[in-house]
């Protein structure tokens, strides 16, 4: 089973600390000074509605629509997550259209090329942009670490099974107390 991040809306206070942590974790430098309004693209978004506040992000689906529709094989399953191979992304936005959660975005970033050890600007590069579960970060997803109310959690097979087990036990008890027949 793929891992994914769930948010508990009851605990979310809409502070957007997770958004900043997400961008910094992917900035390559961890330098707060590297942020800017034009390039700020968190991979989870805090949504505030009439009666809900919660971050929304990728579910790392088992049968991922984004991966299924990608014409260039840029979206793959890896380490129990769904990942984008940016070198293959052409920015066609089919994945954006396919994702039912609005968790996929396509952004453009400055591109560079290296020739004879010299790195120069090379136009822009499109990137399918979504939660990668901070797979390269030893401490796990940055959003989960910083959330002041601990509203964000990584759910993997073991965590899911524990929850299922609890619910099954509760269902069993309820079955005893309220027989249908």
């Amino acid at each position, binding site marked *: 089973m793929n891992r994914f991040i769930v948010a508990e*809306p*009851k*605990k*979310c*206070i*809409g*502070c*957007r*600390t997770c*958004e*900043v*942590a997400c961008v*910094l974790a992917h900035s390559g430098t*961890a*330098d*707060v*000074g*590297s*942020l*800017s*309004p034009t390039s*700020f693209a968190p991979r989870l978004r805090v949504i*505030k*509605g*009439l*009666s*809900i*506040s919660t971050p929304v992000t990728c579910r790392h689906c088992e049968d991922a629509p984004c991966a299924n529709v990608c014409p260039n094989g840029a979206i793959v399953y890896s380490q129990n997550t769904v990942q984008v191979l940016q070198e293959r992304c052409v920015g066609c936005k089919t994945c954006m259209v396919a994702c039912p959660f609005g968790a996929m975005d396509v952004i453009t970033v400055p591109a560079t090329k290296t020739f004879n050890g010299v790195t120069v600007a090379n136009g822009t590069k499109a990137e399918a942009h979504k939660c990668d579960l901070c797979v390269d970060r030893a401490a796990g997803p940055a959003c989960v670490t*910083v959330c*002041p*109310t*601990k509203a964000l959690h990584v759910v993997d097979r073991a965590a899911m099974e524990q929850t299922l087990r609890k619910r099954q036990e509760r269902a069993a008890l309820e079955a005893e107390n309220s027989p249908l027949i």
Partner: protein
Amino acid sequence: MEKVITVCPYCGSGCKINLLVENNKVVGAEAANGVTNQGELCLKGYYGWDFLNDTKLLTPRLKRPMIRRQRGGELEPVSWDEAIKFASSRLMAIKEKYGANSIMTTGSSRGTGNESNYVAQKFTRAVLGTNNIDCCARVCHGPSVAGLMVTLGNGAMSNSICEIEDTKCILVFGYNAADSHPIVARRIIKAKEKGAKIIVCDPRYIETARLADLFLPLKNGSNMALVNAFANVLLNEKLYKPEFVANYTEGFEEYKAMVAKYTPEYTAEITGLDPALVREAIRMYAAAPSATILWGMGVTQWGQAVDVVKGLSSLAAITGNLGRPNVGVGPVRGQNNVQGACDMGALPNTLPGYYPVTDAAAREKFAKAWGVPSISGETGYGLTDVPHKILEGKIKANYVFGEDPLQTEPELSLVRKAFAELELLIVQDIFMTKTAMIADVILPATSWGEHENVFSAADRGFQRCYKAIDPPADHDVKHDWEIHSLMATAMGYPMHYNNAKEIWDELRGLCHLYTGATYEKMANLGYVPWPCPTEDHPGTPWLYEGNKFDTASGKALLFAAEWRAPLEKVDAEYPLGLCTVREVGHYSCRSMTGNCTALQTLADEPGFVQIHPDDAKQFGIADQALVWISSRRGKVITRANYNDRVNKGAVYMTYQWWIGACNELTVDHLDPISKTPEYKFSAVKLEAIADQVWAENHVQELYGKMKADMRKAAMA
């Protein structure tokens, strides 16, 4: 990499942070395991430190002393000797000509710390010879201090932040914890998880309302009526504790008579609330084995504020929710050291440790300790008196320390007009601000992170904040207490301290509430809530043990008052009520958070006005469009923000925007006792702007020019 323990410089939650330091530069912040924050931080805590690197995103750092030889002339950088000589000689001349009471000073409730506030008020009282010192408590929790001092004898939170999660019922009244104190919001969530009932009284459907058992969306400006209705139900339905009332309170008969007519049915028209909901809410509060009331600016920033505080205090008293753990009254302080500035006597009516200036014995004690013949027993001017007293010709000089009144006071056009009449304006700060821009003398100080000090958290908890870095080499800046000492010495009162600890030790020797709170006890993550009378005392997380109150009689005073409507009325011309509020990412006048990259990335000028979509559509205003908002006092441009959570008929603006400055619109109407402004209600109108391209350009032009002017002035 070095880790240095500090206390967050923003709200009053008292969160401990480890600043990560490399080569005398702060490069990051980690949550430390402090008593109140337990290893968690919020947006500002994690990402609110890079103003230390002089990012100049909003305004540049003040790096050297500057003076203006003529009012309205150019700022000129000078040596410290010249700046001190210039400022002190002018102050002395003004004192000589007009008397000590013609000089006003401020304390600073922000990153400077308790020691410098102690020195600032000592300078004011011992050197200038006046009690004309105040701090921004006046414009925030002043009513809480004034009200609770009378009813319970202590103006602070009765119980600690940590206890909030173990109470069985929280009555949240005019307090948006998610935006003002995320780390307190976290305790409310934990309380809910532990089974507490949550009741929220607020015109907006705030984050806490989402988890509330009961939500009471009262009309803006009806607080007293609702509090009286609560009391009425408690008395009529015999839900109060008669034994507690008989033994530990006074004023019951008058209280009962005053609230007699305020049945939930009578108040329904004022509050807009269903009487059944009001009854259910206060029954829930009364039924809880322990209950806590938390309030914020929604209670205090009204023309009727002190009365409401006393009313809330009375609800706690008659239900016996005082004098034990996990109960009480919680005015949660907004700025990180506004509790501290009050503790240190940066108030016109109290000396350090809350001795009234009218107390002759206390005055004599302080006069003796400070080596002066006497201290004035006359209560000084409050912050909100200042514009009026200047215009009356009574205040001639204003020494502003770590505040930006030209951004944060109500009715800014009045403040500007008054400040233009001053003979001398001294600003001591870390950044160029709107007030510093018109100062005659600028005295640049070290920032939070560049000095060590003690802060007081909202729940009276003293904590130490260590120095992380030296000011950069090109900054010719001094500690705030050094600057006041130099001024004192130049004015003929030799004052010298070697470090902050010397100041702290002098202070605790003079105040019985703080005597035992030593630097050693507060080392690292140490936390000492006052009262802490002796060195072997651990401090006092909750007050009034044995139901003994700090009033003269030892009893809690019960109090209610007739409801008064807000001053301004909405009408055909100004059909909406403006309420000023906070947002999580920015703080105070924004000189600090506006220079933090992450916080400025999330929200920038001209800010926004929250409006219900139905109201917006009626005025032809699109979501995210730039609009004009105006009151009888001013007009600014801002961005419309459709928000289903706000009530119809009211609009909300956060107060830190320099272009979309809501205080151009607010009204200078004050609570008669605490002199706190009615920031929460001004009649306004919104007007759509047809040419949005022009409007966007206009904002950029205004913002660009303002920033360029600030830079030019600071770099002179």
